[in-house]
């Protein structure tokens, strides 16, 4: 078992989730209620990482932040290196995980009946109070589902990690990359252990997602009665 790779994987998963949560929450709440005509375009952009091969995203990331680009050169001059670092990996991980975080949260907010917002307003609650006391408590299963999906997907990410992060032990070598290494090195015993660990973690995360989704559906059913 490559413990340092497990550590990198878990660190990346937790940091990605924490960084993405406020961004995803704001985007999801906005998309759930906005009547703006450009909404489908924003939604399509957010879903794009689901369809594109990870290598495409990794490639553009390298083009944008590599030493050859003006941005990369300027960042390097400021002492910030994003290629082949955990920071860079974190940035690209946030990007590719946007749909996994935003989708369930958006669905959860959209399922809150508008009449509940109105009931809160006529009860004297400000828009902000309505969000904290009514909408968020009702949408929390969606938030948990989004977080669990993000963790699971980050752990399973391979192509984009290899392209952007490379394979640096203790820095960017995640469990999935390490597994690839072990198979290449014919160390099938270690590969089995790590593959099993990834299966276990993903299964747990997905079970949580489904459980939260069920809670969310029950909540919605109650509101519609």
């Amino acid at each position, binding site marked *: 078992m490559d413990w340092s790779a497990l550590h990198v994987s878990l660190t990346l998963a937790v940091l990605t989730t924490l960084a993405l949560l406020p961004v995803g929450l704001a985007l999801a709440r906005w998309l759930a209620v906005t009547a703006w005509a450009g909404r489908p375009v924003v939604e399509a952009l957010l879903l794009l990482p689901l369809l594109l091969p990870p290598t495409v995203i990794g490639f553009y990331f390298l083009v944008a932040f590599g030493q050859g680009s003006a941005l990369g050169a300027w960042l390097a001059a400021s002492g910030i290196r994003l290629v082949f670092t955990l920071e860079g990996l974190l940035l690209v991980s946030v990007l590719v995980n946007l749909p996994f975080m935003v989708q369930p949260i958006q669905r959860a907010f959209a399922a809150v*009946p508008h*009449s*509940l917002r*109105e*009931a*809160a*307003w*006529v*009860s*004297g*609650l*400000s828009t902000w109070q309505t969000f904290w*006391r*009514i909408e968020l*408590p*009702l949408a929390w299963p969606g938030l948990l589902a989004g977080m669990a999906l993000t963790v699971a997907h980050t752990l399973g990410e391979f192509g984009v990690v290899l392209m952007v992060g490379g394979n640096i032990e203790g820095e960017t070598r995640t469990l999935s990359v390490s597994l690839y290494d072990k198979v290449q090195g014919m160390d099938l015993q270690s590969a089995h252990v790590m593959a099993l660990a990834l299966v276990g973690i993903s299964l747990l995360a997905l079970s949580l997602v489904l459980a939260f989704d069920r809670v969310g559906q029950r*909540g919605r059913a*109650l*509101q519609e*009665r």
Partner: protein
Amino acid sequence: MQGLQVQLRSASPIRLEAEFDCGAGELVALVGPSGSGKTSMLRAIAGLWTPADVQGHIRVAGQAWLDTALGVQLSPQERRAGLVFQHYALFPHMTAKANVALAAGPGWSDADVQTLLGRLGLAELSERRPSQLSGGQQQRVALARALVRVMPRPTAGDVTAPQVLPGVLLLDEPFSAVDSPTRQTLYRELAALRQKVSVPMVLVTHDLAEARRLADRVVIVDAGQTLQTGEPARVFASPRNARVAELVGIQNHFEGRFLKGEGGWGRLRWTDVASSDHGLDLAVFDKNKIDDGTLVTWVLNGEQVDVMADGELPSTTEPGYTRLRCQLLEVLSLGEITLCTLKPEALPSQTITLNLTSRLLRRLQVGAGGWVQLLIAPGALHIMPVRTK
């Protein structure tokens, strides 16, 4: 100035021409078919819907909630409107008590909220969530949540005199989602509530019987317009125009032409179609409001029509009574009441519908196909000029 005054005008997104008021402690029902705009009017009072081009005002107890002339528009939070939503819109993740406490002002303590819930028969249920309550119980929680917005802090002991409060209570079809026995109970509770709190109450309903039973006054709404306001009995007996008559479901609604006479009397020529000249004449009062020859629609109030046996002479000799020989086309016994359809001999294309007591028909010894005489008092005829719009 106490009570609620509403005057709104807008052209889009829907046409709106609303004008009505509601005194403190009065219950006014906005009645109209679905899509007529009555719920929009209620939402406008609560501040949940304000058309961009709206002109007019909404005033409550002298305070302007909306006044386009002065540029005043309060937010829903600033208006003291207790709104009971059609499907209650209770917060599903909160207990009954928390739902009410959320809307309570700073003067309300936990015990005050519990007292209010107790008054509505919810004392034992205050810790339950909406999903654990029946439809009628949910409705009472919604009512409590609305009341808490317009009531001052409940004082110790029972309130004897109705209190005057600076808010409005708005009820959006609140009885539509509960079964009939529960509805009867809630009707009684609403009546009891009105003894205790004195705020303007506006009820939106499409149910005429409900409006008639609960409201002090009804406002007939159609296509975004308030057509007529008045006491239920008055509006039902004297609809302002044909559309109102149609909306309040009046039977015996006919067409004709008004002909002026002398000495305060005129004639109503009942015709097959409005433009026809052929018809039968009925004596009516001439109040000098309608010009000679005007096309009119008119309503016969069945409660002021006497039925006699064919050939019997009338006991009254008062002027203005019209005798009309009719054939019974259909006789439908509904227990105490018998629904009869009659065809006037002189105008066989028309039919009159009357609710007669079954006893009367037994006494007259007539059935379907038989003949009777109708004695029509001039007051039974309500005449309206044809609506030209």
